[in-house]
Every structure is written in structure tokens, then in C-alpha cells.
């Protein structure tokens, strides 16, 4: 209790350090560093552009800026926060960068297909075939008809086989046969699409003579690719059906096949439909097997069993590969057909998601 001691002045002069925020970069710091990195990159590219009079490269500046950001955030964090946090920041930047990197092709592709595709996205394009068309004009009607016919036939072949196989695997399959089928479905999933095309070609040329290219061969090739996808997705959906439902039906004396038809399938129909739509959207864009097995033609062909048949993806390829004069007309047709194809695939995907969302059984989860 001596009076000579000074009052404590330090406590008020130096504020207490908040141990939770001490030694950490402030929240907006990463954004500021990113902005600075992009500015530096833009400055470099601006000097380069001034030096040789070329156009300012926006994409390059953004890309170099983003790359510059990764070591700089590490450096700043290292100085302020220490080694462990710096590593964490570095990985966060890398992981986010990976995602942004994957978005670049998607965005670039969308913009390209839409801008080039709209050049010929007109009424003529959807009402004419390429018969007797050289140069400008012409359309994809024959290719759309071919795609619908071949994909439809492939679906008619694959859906019953795929669905019944998945029912076999889930409801009946025991022992060696079931294991063998599961293994072979896995093998089929891995068949390269061009090998499926070669198979269909070989099959039909053995029975109908070499060089046979018909729509039905294309459909067979597509169904080889489609069956395993249908089996996989429906099998997964059937396995989701709770066993209690089956047991309740059996307890009421319902035969097994009626249980499957009236209980199991209705419960899982939304998921199965989604899987089938997705499998269709997968095979509708296949080019190589159709190029090999169904060939291509300039004319309308409604007959699956006679003559070559065009399809949208093969149309895109042939318009690009066999450019005539003027080449722009051919490229415009290729891009417009590509846009059509993407729109169809997107629509199928969207419908599949909507079906899954609105018709899913309500389990009260």
C-alpha cells in the first residue's frame, strides 16, 4: 500500500490485443491481393500491347493475374500468419483455381456454340435436307429424323433389356449368373464407343454382305452403349425401394411378379425414368459409332433397314470434315447443328431432373 507506485497508465494506452484476430490477415485482404495481382498483370500486358502495337489481351491479363495471386497470397500469409496458415491459404487458392479453370472451357464453349450457331438457326435449317445442296442453304431435317429414329430404336431395344436385367439382378439374381452379369455390365460400360460401332458394322456385314451401312446397325451400336447405363441406373433405383414394402405385399399374399409390377416399379419409377432419360442424352451425342455403322447421306431416309442414315452428330462432323465452297456455309451449318444437338441434350437432362424432382415418391424424409 505504498503511495509511490504509479497508477497503471499502460493498461489504457495500449489496447488489449484480441487474440482471435491477432496475426491474421483481415477478411478483405485476399480480394485486395487478387485485385492487385490482376492490376499488375494488366499493367504488364498493357506495356506489351503498347510496345508492339498489338491488341490488349484481356484473357491473358486475367489468367496471369490469377496465377500471380497464388504465390502472393502465400507470401503475405507467410509474413503475417505463419507457415501453417500460409499453406492453408495456398491450397484454398489452388482448389478454387481448379474450379475456375474448369469453368473456362464450359463458358467459352457455350459462348462459341451460341454465337456461331445462331448464324444459321433459321426456319430453312429445320425444314430442309441437304439433298442437291452445294454451298449455302440446306438444313438438318434428314439428320434430325435419323437421330430420332436411331435413338428411338436403340431405346426400344435397350429399355426392356436393361430394365428386366436390373430387375433380375435385384429381385431374382443369386449365385454365379448374377455375379457374372454384374461383371459383364461393368465390362460393357467400358466399351469404347467406336468399338461398339465396329461391332455393329461387323455383325451386319457378315449377314448382309460387306459394306452394309443401315440405320438399324447404328441403333444396335447405340443400344450396346445404352444397355449398361440403363442397367446401372435402374439397379441403383430398385435397390433403394425399402424391403418393408416388398414384405408387406408378400404378407398379403401378392405373387412376386405382381409385387414387382405393382409395388416395386411404381415406387422407383421416377428414378428409373431419370436414368433412362440420362442414358438417352448420353447416346444421342455419340458420333463415332454412327459414322461407322450408319454412315451418312445428304437425303432424307425414313427406312431404318435400307440405306445409309444421317444423324445430327455425324452431320456436324461431315459438314466440318468435307467443307465445300464457300467453307463458311459448311461451318455455319456445323455450328448450328451443334447448337441444336446441345439444346436437345440439355432439354433431356432438364426433363430428367424435373421428373426426378416432382415424381419422386414421398417417404416422409
Amino acid at each position: 500500500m505504498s503511495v509511490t507506485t504509479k497508477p497503471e497508465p499502460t493498461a489504457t494506452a495500449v489496447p488489449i490485443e484480441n487474440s482471435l484476430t491477432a496475426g491474421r490477415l483481415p477478411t478483405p485482404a485476399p480480394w485486395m491481393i487478387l485485385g492487385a495481382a490482376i492490376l499488375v498483370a494488366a499493367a504488364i500486358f498493357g506495356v506489351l500491347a503498347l510496345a508492339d502495337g498489338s491488341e490488349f489481351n484481356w484473357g491473358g491479363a486475367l489468367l496471369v493475374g490469377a496465377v500471380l495471386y497464388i504465390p502472393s497470397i502465400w507470401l503475405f500469409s507467410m509474413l503475417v500468419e505463419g507457415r501453417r496458415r500460409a499453406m492453408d491459404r495456398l491450397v484454398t487458392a489452388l482448389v478454387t483455381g481448379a474450379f475456375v479453370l474448369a469453368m473456362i472451357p464450359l463458358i467459352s464453349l457455350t459462348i462459341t456454340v451460341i454465337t456461331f450457331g445462331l448464324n444459321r438457326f433459321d426456319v430453312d435449317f429445320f425444314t430442309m435436307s441437304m439433298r442437291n445442296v452445294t454451298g449455302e442453304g440446306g438444313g438438318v431435317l434428314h439428320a434430325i429424323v435419323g437421330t430420332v429414329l436411331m435413338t428411338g430404336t436403340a431405346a426400344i431395344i435397350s429399355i426392356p433389356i436393361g430394365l428386366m436385367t436390373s430387375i433380375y439382378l435385384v429381385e431374382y439374381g443369386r449365385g454365379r449368373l448374377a455375379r457374372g452379369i454384374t461383371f459383364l455390365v461393368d465390362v460393357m460400360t467400358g466399351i469404347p464407343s467406336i468399338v461398339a460401332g465396329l461391332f455393329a458394322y461387323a455383325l451386319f456385314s457378315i449377314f448382309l454382305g460387306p459394306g452394309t451401312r443401315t440405320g438399324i446397325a447404328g441403333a444396335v451400336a447405340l443400344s450396346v452403349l445404352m444397355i449398361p447405363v440403363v442397367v446401372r441406373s435402374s439397379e441403383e433405383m430398385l435397390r433403394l425401394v425399402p424391403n418393408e414394402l416388398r414384405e408387406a405385399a408378400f404378407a398379403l399374399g401378392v405373387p412376386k411378379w405382381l409385387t414387382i409390377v405393382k409395388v416395386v416399379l411404381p415406387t422407383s419409377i421416377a428414378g428409373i425414368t431419370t436414368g433412362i432419360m440420362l442414358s438417352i442424352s448420353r447416346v444421342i451425342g455419340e458420333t463415332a459409332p454412327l459414322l461407322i455403322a450408319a454412315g451418312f447421306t445428304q437425303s432424307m431416309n425414313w427406312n431404318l433397314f435400307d440405306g445409309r442414315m444421317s444423324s445430327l452428330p455425324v452431320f456436324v462432323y461431315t459438314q466440318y470434315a468435307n467443307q465445300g465452297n464457300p467453307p463458311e456455309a459448311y461451318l455455319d451449318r456445323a455450328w448450328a447443328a451443334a447448337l441444336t444437338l446441345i439444346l436437345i441434350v440439355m432439354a433431356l437432362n432438364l426433363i430428367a431432373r424435373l421428373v426426378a424432382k416432382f415424381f419422386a415418391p414421398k417417404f416422409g424424409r
Partner: protein
Amino acid sequence: MSTATTAIKAKQRPGDRVFSGSAVFAGSMILVTLAAVAVFLIVQSLPALIASHEDASILTDNFWNYVGPLLFGTVWAAALALLMAIPVSIGIALFISHYAPRRLASVLGYIVDLLAAVPSVVFGLWGIGVLAPAVQPVYSWLVDNFGWFPLFAGPVSGTGRTILTAAIVLAVMVLPIMTAICREVFLQTPVLHEEAALALGATRWEMIRTAVLPFGRSGIVSAAVLGLGRALGETMAVAMVLSASGAVTFKLLTSVNPSTIAANIALTFPEAYGMNVNVLIATGLILFIVTFVVNAIARWIVSRRKEFSGAN
């Protein structure tokens, strides 16, 4: 099943017999189809295996010298694609599973899946029209400044349609499937492990390194192998983007590039005749065998971890 046991068997109604019969039939159709694929490919390719230049005009001397460079190109392009796709897909999967805001995660996953919906022929058009011109200046710069490095040796390709461009397109195409598998395993990491790591004071990266990555290692490997299978069989994008000359070379940026089996079939088959068709089918058989082996390895890795079912 034997009559000696007293197990009560369900009454077999006609409907049951028809239904189970058709289910078994459908299952056996898979067996038949796959057997047919193998048999028809083998029957059609047998004559090609012993053919010479006199029999088939596309052969220079014998079949194996023809398929060798193609096989090299196939594996080389797929390996390059995988080298790029593995780190990126792990990154995307981590971003979606552990970094992105919870509410956005499923939307972001759907956006990545959109890449899988783009048909390969469209990727081909894009590769020629957009990617190749965009990377060509980078290639020139690489050759000018790093030409001493064997992979980047010149002369640079003027169009940018080199094996590296084809591999970039392939990498973009296999990204969605690899990301989907990696994402699924990462999400299956036991939450308790993650929380334990965080509770011990680990940063997010240390949590991922100690809990998530060890748990997902076999998933990552099987994703990589499945992606390899896809990349090996991919046809149209390579056929369109790559300007191939059939040489065996490791140089990435020149206009002298190896072709791949699938692309070579797609480019040569429409005009092929006679024994040339058999030669091409035989190369297809080789591709089938290679992808089969690769996929079998993937299955084997997955089956070592039974509880994980994200392979498809």
C-alpha cells in the same frame, strides 16, 4: 433347394414363371451381346493379323508395325490428358465438397456435370475453332524460350493442333466423371474424423490432408483409372483436333504427331475397303483389350473397398 430339406417353396404361378423367365432372358442377353461383340471382332480381325502390304493397302509391312505407333499415340495422349485432369478434378471435388458454401455445392456439382453432357463432336469443333488458335501463341513462346527441353522441342506447329491440344480437350472431357467419383468419396469421409482434426487445431488443409485424402485415396485412384479408360476410347474430339502424321514422338508442340487408334479408325473407316476394313477392326480389338484391362484394374481397386459404390 434339394428335396431333402423341408424349406417351404412359394407357389409358382404362371405369371411368376413368365416374369422371372423374361428377367433371366434379359440378363442372358447381356452375356450374349458381349460374347457377340468379342466373337465378331475376333472373327473379322483374324485375317488382318497375318496380312501384309499386298493384302491391305494401308499396311506398310505387317499389322503389328501398323498398330504399334497408333497404340503409342493412344496411350501417350490419354496419359497426358490424365496428368492434367487428375490434379484439377481433385481440386474441383475438394472445392465442391469442402470449400464451396453448402447451399451452392449441389448447383456447382451440376454445372460441372454439364460438361459431361456436351457431345464429343462439339468438343472437337470447339478444339479446332477456339482452343487451338488460343494456345498457339503460348506454344510459340514455349518453343522459343524452352525449346531446349525435349518435350517442347521445335519447330512449333502453326495451327496449334498438336497432341497437347488434343490432350487438353481429352482432359476437359474426362473431368466430369473423375470429379463425380472424387466428390462422392470425399463426401463419405466420416464427419467425426474431420471434426476431430479441426478440434485438434488443424487448419482446413491439414484436416483434408490428414482425414479426407487418406480416406479417399483408393477412390482417387479408381477415378483416375476410369478416366484413363474414357480417354483411351475417346474418338471424335481427337480425330478432329489432332493433325496426325503417325510418327512416334514425344514432342508436344510440333506438327508431327502420333495418331490414336480410335481417331485413326474414325478417319480411315468411311473410305476403307477389302482387307483394310479387317485391319481397322483388328486395331479396334486391340483398343477393346487395352480398355478392358484398364477397367478391370479400376474394378479391382474399387472392389478392395466394398462399401464405396461410386464407380458408376
